[in-house]
């Protein structure tokens, strides 16, 4: 195979594996092989470089200026935009609300999704229909979902208040999205409606990879249903759960569409997220420099979280993603 201009490699590369030892081959041929490989990656690299990497670097640059978004940035202010971030109650509130959404998700949405996955993993009549139904909202856009629930949770007029009223529970109803104290829980309810099916599907896929013999063996050893769940299902589902937590955190940090359509961050910032603040400053108030600082903060928070989580929590699960960075282990 030495005449081939490219080297086959169907094995997964290990982290320690250096680029292939092609030293024996003449320089010219090695160069051609490298060129062929790079030529294949070129379209993707150009797209990615021009439209993902460049904008992020440009945001980093702009974040050092006071800039309205027209002409070129000239009023250099150093790290002022970043120090302003740390004093901005809205931004700090964004972080707090992001944390709340994450905690809600981990404490409520994911356990619920897991319970439904376990339920639908039993031999239930019509379980295929339930699965399809529970997952269906995932394919709807957040805009459609948002508008739908805006009308359902409309104060007094909406389905929620009317239904509660008709069974004599008026006291439980209220202003929903329009009240500072209930807006976030109501948003969370909608997020759960839309996204729990996604996590349920991940868990179902994980559950199907657990050999039935293990449950059988545990049953024979006298383990009851809860013990089997606690000591067989849960540990074996570990990798899936860790990934679903990861995706749920990233989703919560980056939430935009739903909030923008339903509340635009209101009332009085009580449902605002980082992405919403960024949008407000960038496109409504034309403070591009400050908005860029927010976007860099959002990026760094996502990145640091992702790297820390993959290193610390998911290390034992995957060979993939960031942990394959050479020399990282």
């Amino acid at each position, binding site marked *: 195979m030495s005449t081939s201009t490219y080297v086959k490699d169907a094995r997964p590369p290990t982290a320690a594996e250096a680029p292939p030892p092609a030293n024996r081959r003449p320089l010219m041929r090695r160069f051609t092989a490298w060129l062929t490989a*790079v030529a294949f990656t070129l379209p993707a690299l150009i*797209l990615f470089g021009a439209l993902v990497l460049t904008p992020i670097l440009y945001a980093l640059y702009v974040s050092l200026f006071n800039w309205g978004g027209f002409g070129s940035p000239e009023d250099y202010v150093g790290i002022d935009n970043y120090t302003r971030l740390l004093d901005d109650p809205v931004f700090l509130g964004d972080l707090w609300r992001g944390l709340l959404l994450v905690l809600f998700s981990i404490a409520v949405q994911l356990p619920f999704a897991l319970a439904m996955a376990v339920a639908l993993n039993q031999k239930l*009549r019509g379980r295929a229909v339930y699965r399809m139904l529970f997952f269906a909202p995932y*394919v709807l856009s957040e805009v459609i979902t948002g508008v739908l629930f805006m009308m359902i949770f409309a104060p007094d007029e909406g389905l929620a208040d009317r239904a509660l009223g008709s069974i004599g529970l008026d006291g439980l109803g209220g202003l929903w999205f329009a009240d500072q104290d209930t807006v976030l829980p109501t948003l969370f309810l909608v997020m759960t409606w839309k996204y729990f099916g996604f996590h349920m599907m*991940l868990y179902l896929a994980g559950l199907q990879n657990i050999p039935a013999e293990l449950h059988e063996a545990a049953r024979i050893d006298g383990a009851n249903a809860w013990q089997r769940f606690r000591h067989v299902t849960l540990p074996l589902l570990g990798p899936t759960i860790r990934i679903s937590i990861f995706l749920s955190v990233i989703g919560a940090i980056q939430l935009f*569409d739903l909030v923008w359509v339903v509340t635009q961050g209101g009332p009085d910032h009580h449902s605002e997220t980082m992405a919403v603040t*960024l949008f407000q400053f960038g496109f409504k108030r034309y403070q591009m420099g400050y908005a860029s600082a927010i976007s860099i903060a959002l990026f760094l928070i996502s990145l640091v979280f992702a790297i820390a989580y993959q290193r610390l929590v998911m290390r034992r699960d995957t060979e993939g993603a960031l942990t394959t960075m*050479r020399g990282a282990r």
Partner: protein
Amino acid sequence: MKTRSLPLYVVVWLVGIVMVTPLLYALISGFKTTDQLSENAFGLPSPWVTSNYTDVLASSSFWKMLGSSTLIAVGTTVLTVGAAALAAFALARFAFRGREMMFTLFTIGLMFPFAVAILPLFVLLRTFGLLDNPWGVILPQAAFGLPITVVILRGFFRAIPGELEEAATLDGCGPFGFFWRILLPMARPALGTVSVLAIVASWNNFLLPLLVFSEQTWWTIPIGVQQFQGQYSADIARVFAYLILAMVPALAFYAVAERQLIGGITMGATKG
């Protein structure tokens, strides 16, 4: 039905009710007038009014948005999957200097939210005159769709046995010949999966088209929904009808591509 599993049935059934009620309520409310709706929220419409639905279906703007959404989704998908397949091929089956670094770059891209890049992206698109131009949405969407597509396809390309490639090479196939005539046809299921993911992501994207399309010409469905809600916020029965019609394409697509979609999200999660 065993009585032991009765509680299970009850729970699952209740959750099912909660899931379906908002959709059913919207569907039925669309057949009422807004006056009917405020007097009789829960009952069936009497009489059934079809004008909310037929008005939307008769408006050219709805169909135009459907067309824009479709065109942009198709363009995005072709571009993402095309570029990602080429790159994934090189990343899976060539050994070259810089390969792991390149792959790491793409995997970090998995975490770039649109929001991070949206301001400079907007400036960039404005500079190149791509505002109010479908390419202004297609190109960035394709770029942001690359990471997940590359990761999934690379995993799939790796699983194809090396002997096949040797045989193809002996028969005089160059790298591109192997890629085009053997690998791609074999990878059809994986290509289907990543295409479905790209289509759904593009179809539901809101932030980018919201910024890029200031004129109505290229509005996509999510923009249309938001605008319609703003315009008819007092006539809620009409908005319900519009919502239902706006959902139909996505739900129909889900019904057809359920397997690919679910395969895609589980693959994306485990490989990402």
